[in-house]
């Protein structure tokens, strides 16, 4: 409440006088006070605005500290580079995102989570960051902390997307069935053929013991290579619950013929995976190259890998396999001998096995048998090594030794048909 100003002339009913009277001039002291107050108010508002802006604008967090002392040097280098990029462009969403992914790829989850958060603050429209935050959160002690991140990612992507599917699964796991259903239905409205949504609704129907509905929703995804085995299992259970044992049995038989479900395509995680470096990253890359038939490139990478990691028996073993696949058996054996020299005793068994394998390929049966013997001495449970030993002994004319080796293989793997057949053959022949 403002106090009445005794110096101000009053007018009736508060109406300002209309006469052209000379303007009343406030005494200088009041003018100065008003001026000071006005300046103070402007300054205050400016400070408040600045304060509010600081609170509102996306915060750029400090770059997380990582102890790289005991880290694979290549990984350390990748992390340092990503950190330097962030330092150079502290308000770059891409730089923060890249740092987060590099950290994520190498298991620094807490730090990666924080960096994804900063990237998300800098660009709230990129669904990758909350999605990958969600994925990290699902690894923690409370996976349901991932829900808000997946919700955010789901909002930023099309309805029929992996974040929605993962979110639906998590909601169901937490018992929030109605929310999960609402999400799946929203997807189905836009994409009636959505595999995620149909599968999710089929699973929900099973949970609610609505088995006919479960079968109905399962139908469109029954042949989906990502889901078909699990859909088949669901159908077996649904038929069983409905009392249709014949259908359940038929479906069960079909299920046994199905290959394992393929992995869900996950572009976000693939991007992270591609950033993996270091020995394990290189070996992963080698495996992918070999799977794609690029053997020469794989061996070339392996040769540089053993140069970079000369004390890694694993790297030498991989090189041995690569050379062996390229039919360079002498080179393969040399690489495996290096691996044997470097490996701890239990790991030597694996390398000895491959020495035997490539010697056998060269029909050097006696030498191969020696290598297999070294394998089973270190790893007596290895049914395959016993069997291969039997083959080599048989080829060398040691029928009794071969029979013993086949028997040993069968001891360890009773259902090993090849060993049983070979043994039967040996005992049948005079």
């Amino acid at each position, binding site marked *: 409440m403002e106090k009445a100003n005794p110096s101000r002339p009053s007018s009736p009913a508060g109406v300002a006088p209309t006469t052209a009277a000379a303007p009343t001039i406030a005494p200088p002291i009041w003018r100065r006070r008003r001026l000071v107050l006005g300046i103070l108010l402007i300054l205050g508002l400016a400070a*408040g605005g600045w304060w509010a802006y600081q609170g509102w604008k996306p915060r750029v967090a400090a770059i997380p500290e990582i102890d790289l002392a005991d880290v694979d040097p290549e990984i350390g280098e990748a992390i340092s580079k990503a950190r330097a990029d962030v330092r150079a462009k502290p308000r770059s969403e891409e730089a923060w995102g890249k740092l987060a992914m590099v950290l994520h790829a190498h298991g*620094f989850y807490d730090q990666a989570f924080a960096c994804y958060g900063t990237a998300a603050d800098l660009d709230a429209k990129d669904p990758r960051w909350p999605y990958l935050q969600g994925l990290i959160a699902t690894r923690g002690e409370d996976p349901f902390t991932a829900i808000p991140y997946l919700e955010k990612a789901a909002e930023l992507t099309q309805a029929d997307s992996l974040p929605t599917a993962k979110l639906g*699964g998590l909601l169901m796991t937490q*018992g929030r069935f109605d929310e999960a259903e609402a999400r799946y239905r929203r997807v189905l409205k836009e994409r009636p053929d959505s595999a995620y949504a149909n599968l999710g609704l089929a699973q929900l129907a099973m949970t609610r013991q609505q088995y006919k509905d479960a079968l109905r929703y399962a139908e469109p995804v029954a042949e989906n290579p990502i889901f078909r085995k*699990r859909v088949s299992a669901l159908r077996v259970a649904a038929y069983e619950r409905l009392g249709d044992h014949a259908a359940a049995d038929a479906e069960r038989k079909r299920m046994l013929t199905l290959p394992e479900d393929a992995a869900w395509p996950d572009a976000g995680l693939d991007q992270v995976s591609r950033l993996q470096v270091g020995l394990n990253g290189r070996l992963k890359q080698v495996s992918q190259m070999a799977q794609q038939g690029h053997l020469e490139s794989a061996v070339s990478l392996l040769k540089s890998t053993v140069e970079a990691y000369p004390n890694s028996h694993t790297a030498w073993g991989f090189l041995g396999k690569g050379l062996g696949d390229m039919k360079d058996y002498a080179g393969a054996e040399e690489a495996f001998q290096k691996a044997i020299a470097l490996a701890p005793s239990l790991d030597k068994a*694996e390398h000895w096995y491959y020495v035997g394998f490539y010697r056998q390929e060269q029909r050097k049966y006696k030498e191969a048998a020696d290598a297999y013997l070294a394998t089973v001495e270190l790893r007596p*449970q290895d*049914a*395959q090594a016993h069997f291969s030993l039997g083959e080599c002994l048989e080829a060398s004319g040691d029928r009794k030794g071969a029979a013993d080796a086949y028997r040993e293989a069968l001891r360890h793997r009773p*259902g090993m048909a090849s060993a049983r057949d070979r043994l039967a053959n040996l005992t049948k022949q005079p």
Partner: protein
Amino acid sequence: MPWRLFRDLSLWITCLLVAGCNRTPVTDAPKTEAGPAWFADVTAESRIDFVHDPGPIDGSYFFPQSVGSGVALFDFDNDGRLDIYLIHNAGPKSKSKNQLFHQQPDGTFKDVSAGSGVDVAGFGMGVATADVNNDGLVDLLVNEYGATRLFINQGKGNFTEWTAAESGIDNPMWGTSASFVDYDRDGWLDLVVVNYVELSQTQPCGNTAKGGHRDYCGPDLFKGAVSRLYRNRGCDKDGKWLGFEDRTQAAGLGSAPGPGLGVFCADFNGDGWPDIFIANDGKANHLWINQKNGTFKEEAVRRGVAYNSFGQGQANMGIAYGDVDGEGLPALFVTHLMSEEHGFWKQGPRGLFEEKASAVGLTTRRWRGTAFGTVMADFDHDGALDIAMVNGGVARMGPPTTQFWDAYAQRNQLFVNNGRGHFHDRSEDNPALCGKPNVARGLAVGDLNGDGGLDLVVTVIGGPAQILRNVVPRRGHWLIVRAVDPALKRDAIGAEIRVQAGNRRWQRLVQPGYSYMCSNDPRAHFGLGAADKIEPIEVLWPDGSLERFQCPDVDRVFEVQRGKGQSVQAK
């Protein structure tokens, strides 16, 4: 005035901004009132001095190290008190030998390993106990990586190891859990040995471990192994026990290998014959249904226990089994990895199961972990089975630490049943069990101190075994039933004990082989709540006959002997 207005406005804006920034609220488990602790750590006063040796930490990351070892609670000298057998995993050349602890009349334990015959070294995994030769003394079976070893109890604390040739148990594979069960109902206990994987490759595992360090492998890289079934051959006409014979292939178990970790034998389909459930790590579980002719048929998918509710095979490990809601149909609980959800398969109708972990509250918890050993037990005697589980990682959760196993440590968990089959996480109230992170594997349950309350023993990789005494205040009434068949001179493994008070009914199975690589108190334990009187106890013996026994009072151990009750027509 302007300053105050400015201050208020600023505060208001700040509050708005803070609320606006917090766009991702963290969900939390519902808070419940804190309660008293249910367990006290009495390891030191029990004089159990056992520190598990998992073998050298030499950079080879030998897979069996991370699987851990179990524990057996059994009364080897028939003095009425449970004794404890603890296993090391440091290899046959190690100085660390398994330890046998005999319980003294004052409740402390004395290490009687030396000269017992069971003080052996090996890559020790699981343990099973039962009287295999029906001589009235409980025998011991130890699974190792590379062997299954049978120790016949000679009495007076002495055991003799039978060679594979003598016992007929030739299992050179990687044995994990084992269980005795009379699958052919001939009065001789047969044996299921669960095998894990064929460890025939070495792979560089641990790609995602911090900094690219190597870590333990998982089972997915290896071929799952065949679990074995051994039939007890009984005695010859001179009374000499003949050992076992391998019936794996003939019985059908050889047709479906799998990376088995847990086993539980019970009548899953209600036909009166025991079936075999095997928890497979990372694959569909197996439920071998007894065909009553010496063979089994695998029906896990058909009966709903192969996969989780999403139709996925997961890392199935420890097993608990029991009727949690008093409806008369036991449920199956199987522990899993931290990145998965534990499986709770509710039964109904008889023989069919549905995964319902979220519906019974098991997915609402304060924290989670990779759980191995687990038991369903009525710790507070309110008449409802609670669930305890012990946790410990299989992959390093941080960079290598000075104490190697610390990087794998997690906290255990306790879920309390509200009496209607719904569970609440009470881990925070139980620091002795759940307070300190550990790399736990085995969890065994039994009334160690004879006060009627169920105590726990926890085994930890590379750490001391823990004895946890039940200290639940104001526990309800209780009853422990020991079911014995005098003709067989042993506990009637496979018998079902039924107790009724008013309109409440309970049932328990006499089967010590459950949890993870452990053998538990073979007696049936009942929490009775406020009931201080019970109806006659019904015992469904393993051969299908039913008897009733009058139990004079509660809060006691009551022994029922086959043939001494009132015979009843079995339904």
